[in-house]
C-alpha cells in the first residue's frame, strides 16, 4: 500500500522538484512581472518568462528531444534558423533607411559602436569562455536580439537563453544605461551642437538601397545572407510601394506570429541545470560591459570624426550606433534636448541607429565565417 502511494507520488512532478527549479520559477515570474508592470520589452519577456516556468516543471517533457512541443518550436524555429530571419523581414519593412542615406558619414557611427562586440569577445575569451561562446557573448553589445539568438544557435546553443535574455533586458534598459555614459563622455557644448539640415533623399535612392546593399553585403560576407536578405527584402516591400499587403503582413501578422514562437522556446532553453551555473550567470555582467563599451566607442568615434571634419557632428549620435531601434535614437534625442531644448536630434540619430542594425549583422557574419564548425 505504502509502496503504491510512493510510486503514485513519483508520477507527479512534486517528487522531482529541485531547489534550482524553484529559483528558475522566481526568475520566470520576475521577467513576467517586469513585462507587465514595467513594460520592459513585454512582447518578448512575457513569453520568455512563461517558457522558463514551463521548462522547469519536472516531467513535463516539453523540451524532450524529438517529442516535446517546445523542443519542436526551438528545433524547427530557431535551430533551423527560420525565426530570426523572419523577424528581420519585419524589421526591414519597418525601417526607413532615409536618415542614414541623407547623411552617409553617420554610417561610420553604426560601425563604431560594434567595437564593444569585439572588445567583449576578446575579454570573454581571455576569461576562459571558448572562442564560440565568447563571440556569442560579445554580440550582446550590439543590442540586437534576433542577431544574438541567430549567432548563439549557430555557435553556442548552450548559452542561447542567457544571451537572449541579457540582450533583450539591456535593450529595455537603454534609457537607463546610456544617458550617464553619454553625459560623462561629452561636454555640454558638444551636446548642444546642432546638425546641419540633411540633404533630401530621393525615392529612387531608397528603392535602390535594399537591392544594392543585398549584393554588396552578401558578396562581401556571405554568412550574413540569411539575416541581410530578409532585412532587405522587407525594406524593398516597404520602399517599392506596390506590395502594401506584403509589407503589412511582414510588419504585423508574420512578426506577431514569429514573436510568439521565438519567446517561448528561448525561455524553454533556460532549465535550472543549464542556467544556474556561474559561467552562464556571468554572461549578464559581460553583456552589460559589452553594451557600455559599444556606447562608449560610438561616442568616441563621433568625437574623433569631429577632429578631422569641418562640419561638426553632435557626438551624442555615436551612442545611437547600437542597434536597439529606435530606443537608442530616442535616448540621444532626449539627452540632446536636456542640453538645448531646441536641439531635435531624433531624425539624425536614426541614421547611425539603422546603420547599427546592419553593422551588428555584419559583425555576426564575420564571427560565423571565422568560427562556425
Amino acid at each position, binding site marked *: 500500500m505504502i509502496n503504491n502511494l510512493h510510486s503514485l507520488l513519483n508520477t507527479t512532478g512534486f517528487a522531482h522538484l529541485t531547489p534550482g527549479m524553484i529559483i528558475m520559477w522566481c526568475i520566470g515570474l520576475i521577467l513576467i512581472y517586469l513585462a507587465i508592470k514595467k513594460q520592459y520589452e513585454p512582447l518578448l519577456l512575457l513569453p520568455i518568462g512563461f517558457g522558463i516556468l514551463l521548462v522547469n516543471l519536472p516531467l513535463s517533457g516539453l523540451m524532450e528531444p524529438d517529442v516535446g512541443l517546445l523542443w519542436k518550436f526551438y528545433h524547427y524555429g530557431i535551430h533551423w534558423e527560420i525565426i530570426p530571419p523572419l523577424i528581420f523581414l519585419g524589421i526591414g519593412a519597418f525601417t526607413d533607411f532615409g536618415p542614414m542615406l541623407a547623411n552617409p558619414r553617420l554610417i561610420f557611427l553604426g560601425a563604431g559602436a560594434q567595437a564593444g562586440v569585439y572588445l567583449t569577445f576578446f575579454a570573454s575569451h581571455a576569461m576562459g569562455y571558448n572562442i564560440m561562446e565568447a563571440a556569442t557573448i560579445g554580440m550582446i553589445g550590439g543590442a540586437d536580439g534576433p542577431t544574438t539568438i541567430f549567432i548563439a544557435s549557430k555557435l553556442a546553443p548552450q548559452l542561447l537563453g542567457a544571451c537572449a535574455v541579457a540582450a533583450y533586458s539591456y535593450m529595455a534598459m537603454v534609457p537607463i544605461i546610456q544617458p550617464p555614459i553619454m553625459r560623462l563622455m561629452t561636454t555640454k557644448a558638444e551636446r548642444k551642437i546642432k546638425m546641419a539640415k540633411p540633404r533630401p533623399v530621393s525615392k529612387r535612392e531608397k528603392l535602390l538601397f535594399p537591392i544594392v546593399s543585398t549584393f554588396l553585403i552578401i558578396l562581401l560576407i556571405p554568412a550574413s545572407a540569411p539575416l541581410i536578405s530578409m532585412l532587405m527584402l522587407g525594406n524593398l516591400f516597404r520602399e517599392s510601394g506596390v506590395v502594401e499587403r506584403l509589407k503589412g503582413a511582414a510588419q504585423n501578422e508574420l512578426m506577431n506570429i514569429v514573436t510568439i514562437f521565438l519567446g517561448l522556446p528561448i525561455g524553454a532553453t533556460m532549465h535550472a541545470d543549464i542556467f544556474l551555473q556561474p559561467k552562464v550567470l556571468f554572461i549578464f555582467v559581460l553583456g552589460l560591459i559589452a553594451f557600455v563599451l559599444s556606447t562608449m566607442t560610438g561616442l568616441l568615434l563621433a568625437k574623433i570624426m569631429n577632429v578631422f571634419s569641418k562640419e561638426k557632428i553632435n557626438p551624442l549620435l555615436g551612442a545611437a550606433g547600437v542597434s536597439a531601434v529606435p530606443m537608442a535614437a*530616442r535616448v540621444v*534625442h*532626449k539627452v540632446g534636448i536636456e542640453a538645448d531644448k*531646441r536641439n*531635435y536630434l531624433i531624425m539624425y540619430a536614426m541614421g547611425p541607429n539603422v546603420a547599427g542594425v546592419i553593422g551588428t549583422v555584419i559583425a555576426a557574419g564575420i564571427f560565423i565565417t571565422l568560427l562556425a564548425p
Partner: protein
Amino acid sequence: MTTEITAPLPGKIVRLDIEPGTSIEQDTEIMVIEAMKMETIVYAPCDGVIEKMIKKVGDEVEDGDLIATVA
C-alpha cells in the same frame, strides 16, 4: 514683419496651444509633435501674435513644413 513657424522635425502634431490671434512669447511652448512614439515640445521662435494657422492637430508634418505665421 512676418515670421514663419516651421516643423523642426517630422512627425504628427498632437497638441497645438496656438490659434490665430494668440500672442506668444519667445521660448514658450506652442505645440507638441510626436515622432517615433515620442512627444517633443516645440517652442516659439519669437514674440508676436499668430496671424494664420496652416496646420491643425492630427496633421502629419515633414521637417521644415510651414505650421503657422507670426505677425
